[in-house]
């Protein structure tokens, strides 16, 4: 019990420290693919440090809602991080239906991000806000249904229970196709939720086609640092849901499990970087179709699991 607690605490601490580094991995991959050298390894940390040292400019249109957005978003990400198991160990907080709390905490953060964007009265941010709201509404069923599929396979209704048992190879044989479809759905949800290509382009924010970046156009300094850090944590927390399926670990050795989890997280980010290098962003009208595909894939497990 105590050991589990410290293991989970270790996982959360790792996430808090290493999460910004995931950006480096993605950006380095993209740079290598484009034949560039890429930013320094610790660039995200320097950026955060610089933002934290800045003053602020607030629009006269904004109210406390605008200031609450980044704070609530970061707080909800801390919460979500405490619910996701790391390295086959139970999460800091785990109970039946914890996935619901995780999904709805993300929704709470999104609710405030959207309202903060609308608080500026800017049409650009309104545009980003409504896309974020719409696309996340479409991706939510895929996530929750995918977890239900994993639950049906492993016989558990909590994230820690599910990911703890996935390491048992008994599930692999007959359920392999179901797992693959759930994984595919999760990858699409991952790219959507983290505002990556092919749904969103994280590198520019002055185009009308952007989603997440355009919502935080007016945020600066400390607020922007909070948002960037929350984004990195989200990349980590949702990433664990994917790496836990691909590399389910239960070797028994704590350090080995943690090492495998970290390595698989790095591989995941390199894959994201590869996707970004090899694909263009989808036309905005196509995104609902992509999310529809994710939803369909998250439903297909029923053919192997319920007979």
């Amino acid at each position, binding site marked *: 019990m105590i050991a589990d607690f410290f293991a989970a605490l270790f996982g959360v601490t790792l996430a808090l420290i290493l999460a910004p580094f995931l950006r480096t991995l993605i950006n380095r991959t993209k740079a290598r693919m484009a034949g560039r050298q890429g930013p320094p390894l610790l660039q995200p940390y320097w950026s955060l440090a610089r933002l934290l040292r800045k003053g602020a400019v607030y629009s*006269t249109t904004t109210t406390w*809602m605008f200031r*609450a957005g980044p704070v609530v978003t970061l707080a909800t990400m801390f919460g979500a991080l405490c619910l996701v198991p790391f390295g086959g160990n139970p999460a800091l907080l785990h109970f039946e239906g914890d996935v619901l709390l995780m999904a*709805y905490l993300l929704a709470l953060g999104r609710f405030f991000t959207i309202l903060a964007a609308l608080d500026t009265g800017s049409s650009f941010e309104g545009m980003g806000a*409504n896309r974020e709201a719409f696309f996340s509404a479409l*991706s939510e*069923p895929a996530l929750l249904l995918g977890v239900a599929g994993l639950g049906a396979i492993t016989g558990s209704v909590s994230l820690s229970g599910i990911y703890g048992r996935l390491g048992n190879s008994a599930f692999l044989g007959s359920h392999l196709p179901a797992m693959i479809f759930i994984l595919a759905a999760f990858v699409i949800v991952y790219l959507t939720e983290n505002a990556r290509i092919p749904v969103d382009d994280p590198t520019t924010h002055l185009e009308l086609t952007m989603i997440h970046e355009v919502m935080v156009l007016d945020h600066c300094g400390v607020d922007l640092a909070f948002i960037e850090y929350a984004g990195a944590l989200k990349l980590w927390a949702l990433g664990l849901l994917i790496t836990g399926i691909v590399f389910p670990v239960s070797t028994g050795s704590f350090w080995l499990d943690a090492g495998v989890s970290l390595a698989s997280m790095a591989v995941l980010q390199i894959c994201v970087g590869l996707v970004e290098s090899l694909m263009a962003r989808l036309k905005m009208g196509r995104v609902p179709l992509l999310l529809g595909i994710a939803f369909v894939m998250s439903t297909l497990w029923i053919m192997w699991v319920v007979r």
Partner: protein
Amino acid sequence: MAFFLLLSLLIYLLSGLASLAMGRHPAWGTRIVPFGSAAASLCALIPVLYVLAGGTPVDLRAAWSLPVGSFHLHLDLLSAWFALPVILVSPIVSFYGTGYLRRHDRPRETDACGFFLQLLTGGMLFVLLASDGLLFLLAWEIMSMAAFFLVVFEHEEHEVQRAGWIYLVATHLGTAFLFAMFVLLGSRCGSFDFGDFDGLGGVADVVFVLAVVGFGAKAGFFGLHVWLPEAHPAAPSHVSGLMSGVMIKTGIYGLLRVMVLANDWPAWWGWVLIGIGIASGLGGVIYALVQHDLKRLLAYSSVENIGIICLGLGMSVFGVHSVGPVALFAMAGALLHVLNHAVFKSCLFLGAGAVIQAVGTREIDLLGGVQKRMPRTAALFLVACAAVCGLPPLNGFVGEFLIYLASYWSVLPQGLPSVNPRVGGFVVISTLALIGGLAAMCFTKVYGAVFLGEPRSGCGSSATDPGRDMSVPVTILAALCAVFGLGGSLLMLLVASVAARIHPLAMAAPDMAPLREASAVYLNVTLAALVLAAAVYGLWRLRDRLLAGRVVRTGPTWGCGYPHGTPRMQYTGSSFAQPIIAAFRSLLRSELGGDWPAGYLPGRSSFMTHTPGLFMHRFYTPLFAAFARVAVRMRRIQQGGTHVYVFYVVLALVAVLVWSLL
């Protein structure tokens, strides 16, 4: 205990009559209604709490002069649970209504409104207590008619007359089905007493269908919901709050009351309820998203929440035939959502009423920046918005959490022969998730367009927060949203006894231990919420600490280099809903129109969207038009001359004679 119930009903009646009689002393007349309501609620609370705490059901029979039916009141766990929202919300709404109507300055209608408000509240309580078919229909009609007179408060306005008319027709069509249902039950069972309806007289399936249609018209099942988006905008805001938050739940109560009398719940009932849940939940939220009228939007959102309740009921039907806690969780979730929806929806309507009264319009796209002028109302409205989206730690999450949990349990491999619960759970999870996402979109639209940004028109430039008489009731409701959310565990314990004793469930899952466990599990959510609150506070302080002593300037919103933006160029509620209109084009059939800019130097241009209710537009309007055409033709036999009617009488007599001879 029965004494308190009768006293409560009597207080409703007497205080209503007194408010009518006090017309000449408005100061007394307006006070008598809320205080009467509070006193009646307190009286009713005693037996309700007694029954919920495990006391024996309260039963009362009295003399009855009609040859059929009986005066039989019965307060069991189910009635007691549904009485909770009535008791809790109605006095709050009543106090708010006093302040609200004072600002309207229509003394005559105000007196009548007080009377009918008492009649509506008392009628709802009467419906929950009535344990005899005829008595139930009587109570049902009192409630429905009182609501009608409340809807037509501003009776000289054409729109209001139309809304009232639609409500009247809808509610009576529903009642017609209930008549048929009770007559069928009465003829089968030989009495109208609910106690004799055990097993539903062997015609459970027919009765179920009649109940779904009859009670569904009141509850606002999608397809039967057409009166909600008409009546709620027309009625005064506190009446909309009471009708939308509490009255429509009597429909759910009626349906459950009938279902409880059945020996068993066949699986197809579950599919019917889940189908209704999907249609109402998704249809309600999508239609809510595309509305321009604030109160009409809230009315559609009620349809959505009724859908969520139906999803829970449907899962519960499946759960009866499966092992594990599915039935119990789903039923408890549905019942909790009944209570929680009453709280946050009435809070939304009361908050919206305060805004509408201050700015003078219900049109979302004319508003903006209201938060700066009405900060208190805005904060309370935000709490209710987050609650209706089911966001933790507010109360909307509690019921949804249990329904989700039931669905997650139902997909687990349990070695069951039936696939119904597993496929049902699968469907419910995806529907609830989509509803949740779209509801978040809907209510960020409402809050963003109404309260944030800059004012889009001159509407309500001098708006301020309402006085204490209106803001205190809203504050109480918003506080209840938070309290019920944080105290979700206690609510689960309270509902456990109700859900576990609902008749067919009591056979499958006689104990409420799973719900006790779920309530312990929910403590984790409360814990997480407290940690979250601490984190928010800490981060806020951190930001303040970091920014202290640094340059913090203000300036205009960044317009990407374009300095001449006007408030009218902001994203409106309609723009926010545009992806929905595009994505669900075939379902919504929105009408787009206006003058498009043309030529090199375009002049004035305009754009409008309108989404008519599909059922009203494509089904009911043509149907009633066809009825009207037939009726016009029938008029030919109504000549108005006495000799013609004498001829008809003779004709009828001859016909009877011939028929008896044959």
